[in-house]
């Protein structure tokens, strides 16, 4: 009986040492990994929301062109144009899926650091790699898929040295995640010009619809005029404003045209800022993963600031879009 116990103990000891050697000793901070995971998930989920909203904007662009056609005599969108815009919408759906997969991966990475949920992180990593490759295909690029190593995240177990093994898994998961972040970063850099060009077209189109609706008496400029009030105690006089606009219609048309053109440019510039911020945040995540893996302290303040800045810019885009003149019917 004693001999059997000794053999079992020896077998467990050997397995544990083998597992430890396989995964490697690690000085990775699980707390830093958890916070890194939170920031990574925030970044990814913000990017999902931003990507999904651009899909809706592209759809609205097509609809807007039909309205402009009816108002101005311009041709309505050609079949080719609709096909090409739908291709862009599909690519955006693929991008949103990629960042959903990144969100899930960061959540499971956080769980790995907190509870050693190896199976979950292995599954989400596989999902992330598949999503990256699918997005690379849409962009006509290679993403250098990384799949080796995921198995070791799932298989290694040894209760006696669980903490060290867990740290090793966190380190290995971080390495795989970082390599995928680099792939995503490369894909985003490749799509930057086309992304911004599409946004430019969409915002430009949205401005044109607004101007044409205003010129054809379908839109009311009240909200633009009211934007100028507020801090000096003046209140908006609806009847007075209508009379003033009617009396000086040509001058107001020019003014509203210029204001909308200015708002269009602001939104276009903001899109470029958001894109650059996304790349910077990705760079920050990659850098902090590298530090984490080397056992160095992670600069979470800078990383959090980057993610917060991105969220603030995305919110500003939403606010700017909300500022687009409303199309309430004239009384």
């Amino acid at each position, binding site marked *: 009986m004693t001999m059997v116990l000794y053999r079992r103990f020896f077998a467990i000891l050997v397995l544990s040492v083998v597992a430890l050697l396989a995964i490697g000793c690690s000085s990775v901070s699980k707390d830093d990994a958890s916070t890194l995971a939170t920031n990574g998930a925030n970044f990814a989920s913000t990017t999902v929301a931003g990507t999904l909203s651009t899909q809706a904007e592209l759809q609205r662009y097509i609809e807007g*062109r039909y309205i402009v056609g009816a108002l*101005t*005599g*311009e*041709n309505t*969108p*050609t079949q*080719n*144009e609709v096909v*090409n*815009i739908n*291709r*862009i919408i599909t690519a955006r759906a693929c991008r949103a899926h990629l960042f959903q997969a990144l969100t899930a991966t960061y959540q499971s990475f956080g769980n790995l650091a907190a509870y050693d949920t190896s199976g979950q992180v292995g599954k989400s990593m596989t999902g992330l790699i598949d999503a990256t490759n699918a997005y690379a295909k849409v*962009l*006509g690029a290679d993403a250098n898929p990384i799949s080796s190593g995921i198995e070791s995240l799932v298989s290694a177990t040894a209760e006696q040295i669980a903490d060290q093994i867990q740290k090793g898994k966190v380190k290995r998961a971080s390495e795989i995640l970082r390599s995928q972040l680099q792939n995503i970063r490369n894909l985003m850099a*490749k*799509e930057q*010009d*086309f992304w*911004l*060009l*599409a946004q*430019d*077209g969409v915002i*430009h189109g949205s401005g*044109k619809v607004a101007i044409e609706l205003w*010129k054809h008496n379908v839109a009311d400029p009240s909200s633009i005029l009211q934007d100028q009030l507020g801090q000096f105690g003046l209140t908006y006089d609806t009847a007075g404003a209508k009379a003033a606009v009617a009396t000086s219609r040509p001058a107001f048309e020019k003014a509203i045209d210029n204001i909308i053109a200015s708002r269009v440019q602001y939104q276009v510039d903001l899109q470029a800022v958001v894109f650059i911020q996304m790349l910077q945040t990705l760079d920050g995540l990659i850098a902090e993963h590298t530090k984490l893996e080397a056992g160095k302290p992670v600069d979470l303040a800078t990383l959090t600031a980057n993610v917060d800045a991105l969220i603030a810019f995305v919110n500003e885009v939403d606010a700017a879009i909300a500022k687009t003149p409303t199309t309430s019917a004239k009384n």
Partner: protein
Amino acid sequence: MDPTLDQIKTTFFSLDDNFDTLYAQCTTDDQRSHLRDLESSAEDAYWKAVADGLVDNNTVVQKFTVQLQDANNQIKTSLENLKDIAAFLNLATEAVKLAAAITTLAASA
């Protein structure tokens, strides 16, 4: 931004932004129809360029880009003092043809 994409955008936006003014200058139905088709074709080229993710790594595309830039500059000058709509439509036709050619060539590059 990539110079080819920038020029394709300039052609489309020039025609789109000034459509009302140009349309008012047209004196015949043929001119109005021509203008509508030019604006549509410029828009088609724009979205094809975005959807294809075209790259100007082709020497022919680069050569056409220079020609398109020249045509866009002439369009801009012409719009500042629009006098002859027929001449403008000829100029715009040249620009739109170049934009369409670039998107086709670049897509197959």
